[in-house]
């Protein structure tokens, strides 16, 4: 058990290094603020005292830790060792595309010519940054078959929200104000209905058919004059390409709705097919999935939103433009939905994704998707005889197994996942999608080797066998991690969200 940084605190220890105050004397002269100590510190306090009226001043110091620099480094190094990242080992977390994060992209993002640029600098002094935004827009357009991108959304869910606001703005602009419903398949990510609600729509669920795609009959029954649009992930969260996509697009478009593409699974289709050609009107991409930027332990990500021509006026403001000589930011966009965050998006993330696309090139991106799909199908075949495979079809970049028939041992998917931790693997996504009982959603990505996948498959199979022979061992897993299974019910019932000394 690691100490908290607060528990390491000792009064008087410091880890910071600040310059002395070189402006205090003059101020004291001007303000003639009372007594001053002979050391710089005292002078500063006097300055602070004289510059803020008493009633606005903080009464009691914030109890931040007092530690040495060595303490800080040792503490956070210890914490890092209690964390599993892609660099530690296989991370087949379905729908999250935990591929390798190229190191050179980190070096590029650290260049002072990018990292230390202020967002309010004049366009002439940020030509390199705006060039990245402009070229990234162009490259994403080509990859997806859309007409224009905004790079402002900070994450996938944020891109969804922006995209749905654009759909709303489009209908409103046309005076088509009765379109209040967004259709979402039952296999969709939870963010889809949540984003729809946040954008002011009512989310309507349609069920999936026996092949795992959208049930066309149910869709036809669901659409109508109140349909604003349909949100779809294709390949969907079962890892299956919906072969009926053209028919789905026709049904929604005929009803006057628009098609939204959740790009969470775009790693399967780069250079192979494009949402723009499938009939989608709005897409978002997850640069932190498909385009290799690190997930950062939960963020920062980046969720650019792209649209077809008719929706371009509604994109968030500003957009990057180029006149052949100068790059500039266009703020004059009267029909825009407005801003969805400050400044221009998670620029540092966009930059890494840009470097990735420039590294891979068009053929490389196609190879990414081909190998992602090959790896997923291979792993699926290695495992399908040992687990239930509810949709036995060729999968795309991921597949979903079920561990559903183990009433006699009482072992659940969660137990299998926890046991995997003992062997140095991050478990697959579990209990999602919701339409598969005891689901295990596995996405190996293209950056994993055959040996890694074989080792994972062998381990998973041996755990399944162990679950029959020694269920207790699996139920009480993990056994080799820093902590054993944690009491999540207790955490929610009696929330302890801050440390009290």
């Amino acid at each position, binding site marked *: 058990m690691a100490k908290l940084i607060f528990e390491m605190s000792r009064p008087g220890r410091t880890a910071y290094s600040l310059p002395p105050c070189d402006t205090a004397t003059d101020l004291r002269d001007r303000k003639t603020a009372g007594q001053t100590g002979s050391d710089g510190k005292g002078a500063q306090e006097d300055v602070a005292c004289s510059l803020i009226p008493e009633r606005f001043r903080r009464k009691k110091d914030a109890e931040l830790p007092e530690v040495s620099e060595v303490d800080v480094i040792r503490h956070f190094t210890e914490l890092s060792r209690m964390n599993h990242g892609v660099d530690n080992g296989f991370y087949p977390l379905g729908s999250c595309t935990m591929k390798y994060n190229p190191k050179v992209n980190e070096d590029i993002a650290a260049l002072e010519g990018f990292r230390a640029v202020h967002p309010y600098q004049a366009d002439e002094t940020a030509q390199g940054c705006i060039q990245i935004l402009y070229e990234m827009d162009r490259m994403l357009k080509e990859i997806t078959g859309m007409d224009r991108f905004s790079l402002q959304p900070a994450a996938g869910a944020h891109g969804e929200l922006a995209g749905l606001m654009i759909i709303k703005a489009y209908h409103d602009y046309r005076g088509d104000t009765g379109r209040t419903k967004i259709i979402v398949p039952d296999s969709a990510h939870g963010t889809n209905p949540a984003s729809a609600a946040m954008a002011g729509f009512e989310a309507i669920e349609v069920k999936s058919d026996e092949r795992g795609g959208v049930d066309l009959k149910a869709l036809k029954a669901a659409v109508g004059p109140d349909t604003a649009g349909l949100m779809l992930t294709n390949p969907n969260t079962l890892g299956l390409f919906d072969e009926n996509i053209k028919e789905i697009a026709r049904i929604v478009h005929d009803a006057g709705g628009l098609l939204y593409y959740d790009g969470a699974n775009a790693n399967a289709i780069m250079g192979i097919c494009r949402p723009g050609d499938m009939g989608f009107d709005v897409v978002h991409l997850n640069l932190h999935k498909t385009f290799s930027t690190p997930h950062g332990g939960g963020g920062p990500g980046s969720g650019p939103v792209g649209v077809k021509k008719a929706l371009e006026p509604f994109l968030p403001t500003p957009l990057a433009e180029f006149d052949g000589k100068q790059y500039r930011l266009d703020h004059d966009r009267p029909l825009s939905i407005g801003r969805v*965050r400050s400044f221009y998006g998670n620029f540092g993330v966009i930059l890494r994704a840009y470097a990735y696309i420039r590294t891979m090139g068009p053929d490389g991106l196609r190879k990414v998707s081909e190998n992602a799909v090959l790896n997923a199908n291979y792993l699926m075949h290695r495992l399908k005889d040992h687990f239930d495979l509810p949709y036995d079809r060729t999968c795309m970049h991921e597949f979903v197994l079920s561990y559903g028939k183990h009433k006699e041992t009482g072992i659940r998917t969660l137990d299998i996942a926890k046991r995997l931790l003992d062997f140095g693997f991050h478990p697959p996504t579990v209990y999602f999608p919701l339409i598969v009982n005891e689901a295990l959603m596995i996405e190996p990505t293209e950056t994993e080797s055959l040996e890694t996948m074989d080792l994972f498959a062998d381990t998973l199979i041996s755990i399944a066998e162990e679950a029959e022979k020694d269920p207790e061992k699996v139920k009480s897993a993990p056994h080799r991690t820093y902590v054993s299974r944690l009491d999540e019910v207790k955490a929610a019932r009696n929330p302890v969200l801050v440390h009290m000394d």
Partner: protein
Amino acid sequence: MYRYIPNTREDQEKMLSVIGVGSIEELFSDIPEDLRLNRDPELPAGMPEPELTAHMRSIASKNVSTADHPCFLGAGAYDHYIPSVVGHVISRSEFYTSYTPYQPEISQGMLQAIFEYQTMICRLTGMDVSNASMYDGATALAEAALMAVRSTGRDRVLVSRGVHPQYREVLKTYAANAGIEIVEIGISCGTTDHDELLAALSGLESSGQSNMDAGTAVPGAVAASKATGGTATGFTTTGGTVTSDMATVGTVTDRTAKGAGTAAVIMQSPNFFGVIEDMEAATALAHEHGTLSVACVDPISLAVIQPPGEYGADIAAGDGQPLGNPLNYGGPHLGFLAAKQNLVRKMPGRIVGQTTDSEGRRGFVLTLQAREQHIRREKAVSNICSNQALNALAATVYLSVMGKQGLKQAAELCLSKSHYAYSKLLETGKFEKVHDAPFFREFVVRAVDEPVEEINRRLLDRGIIGGLALERHYPEMNNCWLVAVTEKRTRQEIDAFVEAAVRGGR
């Protein structure tokens, strides 16, 4: 050939034979033929690493960097000192290559760091609970407004024009789609107009005066308006109670029905002009009218300025970039969001909680997930499913390094240096006062005989990044200049800045 793809031709053959297909092509047979691209995307050819590095360096060199240009630009993003330690910690790839900590047993590092982050944010803001961070200050504030609307069941939010213009834009975007009415409260002498706020809260509105042009009181009126007692707010606070003179409101029109529907009052301090608002009085006023008080605050300033918890704010939000995060042309930064205990289940975003493992050892997990989209779907409190974990980690490391003394010292240096620069600029006679109110780190002056854009150009020629021309954001603030001075600026840099800011100066 492709260094991030390990499969060899031999591996691929072996895998295809296990799958039982003849080619990779066959794996894509579910995609209708006429939807296939059947060509390479038109993208530039891939680059080997040395070429890529050179290419990216050449693009980076087109930017003017604050690394070698002293920066006097702030306006929501600040060039603060970032201890070397911060970069080293967040470069640990166990942290940055991990995902949201869904599997707590192998994510204790990030979970504990976020727990420490939440604790530090609470101690800094004086609030009871904090989430694991939001995308940025603007979205944190918009979510705070939604939170207030959810908690009160009312659909009207008052926001001061002293709040960052971009934050207000984001707030309006979010509100428009959620059916929330945003009413802006104007500025008087650099701070939120008390009378206008009171009128809006009372369900009354000054007649013949839209919220937009109420702000015109700002620049021109300064010379005439005699600020008293060191403040120009018009708030009168006596022992925590607020008195106000209704007569000053002027002719009013009844908006009682709307007034009853106000969910929150949002104010920022230091506000966009760097001016410290009387948050205690504003909060008391909001509470008197039964609405929530949302404080948008700067984390560095909180080392010396009264924190939201001390004046009783219900929600505190802001941008955490100043806490060890580089400018990054505007992102990634992080937003922080903290609240009183009673609002915790209305909070959006990830929250980390302490618990125990099966052997009774302390551990941390994501908690109160019944609020979130993966459980509640369309009934979730927000659609957000990530945080800015790595940026929050940077903030945590920064606050650990700076500690109780260092953060205060940094804040005091900002105070001292910004006031020094302010006095020096006024001394030249080429700049005049706009507000006569206490400020932190940032202030407004008006250039007397030259457009500020011109001054900024001259500064740039001398290798200095000047302040923000305010007119673009506040049309009535004719030729006003927003200047930020952090602890990183030396006296020498400030002197050079002041000299270059004057035409004909060396």
